[in-house]
């Protein structure tokens, strides 16, 4: 049950590092990515899920909150309910599409927040070094000492159920991971020639961090974060699944999976649908992250 996108990551980090200068580099990466059919397909599917979640109110769907006891647990393919109905008789298609809104928010927002916080912390720790580095990195080590699922659940359990609490707890889980990478890349880049040159030419620390280091650090972290979204989606939905995330009656995939679990003896395949959505988004981001990684790996 790991919960860190794996391996090969540091490779990508190191390869990206020396090429801060080239705008041509990113153009090449983009071109390579567009030629990768799997990545393009993933991007399209993810875009479809995003757009439908965003445009849900204008898609002419049934009311995702309006239930009816008479039509509960209809099977997939019932007339009027293409994906059946849930345990309260609410239209599954509508709830799955509307469910994308919260599910994607609680899945992606923690990664974005952790991306911002972790990158800043890592840059500072790596560039300033010394005591500040020690303070930041030792704190990070403590959080690293917990398996991420355990940490996420412990924090959510302590804060109580709710969307905000769940976002907070996942952010806390991811910040140390991103800080570590940012710190190690920054430390690596700090002593490189072009940074020395910039320093010699009188650039201030913030300028150096912003212009020279951020560019180098962002690439690898971005790849990592894309893979992390997959983990985050699974964990966020997992929290709701345990009853520690989104509260009913909001449509959210993890919570839907939880409440529909009681229906597996009656209408199993409807009960499995929300999980398939989580799976789709998660695998999409993972494949995209892989695609980006190999696109950035110019060596091949």
């Amino acid at each position: 049950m790991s919960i860190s996108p794996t391996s090969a990551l540091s490779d990508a980090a190191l390869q990206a590092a020396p090429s801060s200068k080239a705008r041509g580099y990113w153009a090449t990466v983009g071109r390579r990515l567009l030629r990768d059919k799997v990545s393009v397909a993933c991007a399209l599917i993810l875009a479809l899920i995003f757009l439908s979640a965003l445009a849900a109110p204008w898609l002419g769907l049934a009311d995702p909150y309006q239930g009816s006891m008479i039509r509960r647990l209809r099977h997939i393919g019932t007339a009027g309910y293409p994906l059946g109905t849930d345990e309260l008789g609410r239209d599954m298609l509508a709830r799955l599409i509307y469910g994308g809104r919260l599910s994607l928010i609680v899945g992606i927002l923690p990664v974005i927040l952790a991306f911002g916080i972790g990158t800043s912390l890592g840059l500072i720790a790596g560039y300033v070094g010394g005591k500040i580095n020690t303070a930041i990195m030792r704190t990070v080590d403590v959080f690293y000492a917990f398996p991420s699922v355990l940490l996420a659940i412990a924090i959510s359990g302590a804060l109580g159920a709710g969307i905000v609490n769940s976002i907070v707890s996942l952010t806390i889980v991811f910040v140390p991971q991103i800080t570590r990478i940012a710190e190690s890349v920054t430390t690596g880049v700090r002593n490189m020639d072009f940074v020395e040159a910039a320093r010699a030419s009188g650039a201030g620390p913030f300028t150096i961090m912003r212009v020279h280091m951020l560019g180098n650090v962002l690439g690898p972290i971005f790849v990592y974060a894309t893979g992390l979204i997959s983990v985050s989606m699974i964990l966020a939905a997992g929290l709701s699944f345990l009853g520690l995330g989104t509260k009913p009656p909001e449509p959210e995939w993890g919570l839907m999976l939880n409440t529909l679990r009681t229906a597996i003896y009656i209408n199993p395949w409807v009960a499995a649908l929300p999980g398939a959505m989580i799976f789709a988004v998660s695998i999409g981001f993972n494949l995209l992250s892989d695609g980006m990684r190999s696109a950035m790996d110019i060596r091949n």
Partner: protein
Amino acid sequence: MLAYILRRIVYVIPIVVSVALVCFMLVHITPGDPLVAILPADASQELASQLRIAYGFDRPLPVQFGLWLWKAVNGDLGHSIATGRPVLSEVMRAVGNTVTLAIAAAMIGFTLGLFFGLLAGYFRDTWVDKVATSIAIAGVSVPHYWLGMVLVIIFSVQLNWLPAVGAGPGGSGAWGWDWEHIRYLVLPAVTTSVIPMGIVTRTVRALTGDILSQDFVEALRAKGLRETHVFRHVIKNAAPTAMAVMGLQLGYMLGGSILIETVFSWPGSGLLLNSAIFQRDLPLLQGTILVLALFFVFLNLMVDIAQAAIDPRIKRS
């Protein structure tokens, strides 16, 4: 080597204390009454405050932390509020069941992971590689609690081949390694194994590919060295990293079992954590988190030391 081990252990001590502090803080920022498990909502105010004193929840937090830490160092994690049983025995019994599950899952996940990883690494960029990589990526992307549900739907509900929940006909107390009991382990273990399987596959594939693409392998092959020797060479070079990854995966399986144990009502540490959270049983909650986190720290330490023992370069860094 000994000096390295000592250095690592000394480095771990502050982490352990901080981990204990984090556990304690997490549990005590919890809103709600710590005695909710034993104090009915209809209990009088007077009774509530009387019990708060009896349990020591009226004392300042630093004092409570100090006392708890001191007792914990002496092997006493206090008593569960809800059951009155000693926390340590509750946790260790549950951890034992989680270990059973994790080891079964590791056997499945690591075997398949090594197999697919080596296959994919050897036949890089062929259809074999594509299939193995797809399985791996599905493994790391699947919400495992959902997979567990789907397996229950197929094998318990539809086919009625395997039990859906529990740890054997007589509970974990009467566990035995016969089919009557192992039936109960199959679905949770398979479910738990998919993520380690995916991760080990990806790691081993990358390692194998890297080693095989090195120039000297070409040279060895050109010299007419037999494939078995090349294979041995691959294994030798891939082993340290692969083992480190597997060690960590084992740690994740032990510490992150809550979702799967909840799906399968497997009476391990995750299920214990779940009930501690929902009963707001603070001593049990902080004790369980602490023990699981310490297991993880310990496993990390072991992995580091084992890696250093195999690859002397690590010691110097």
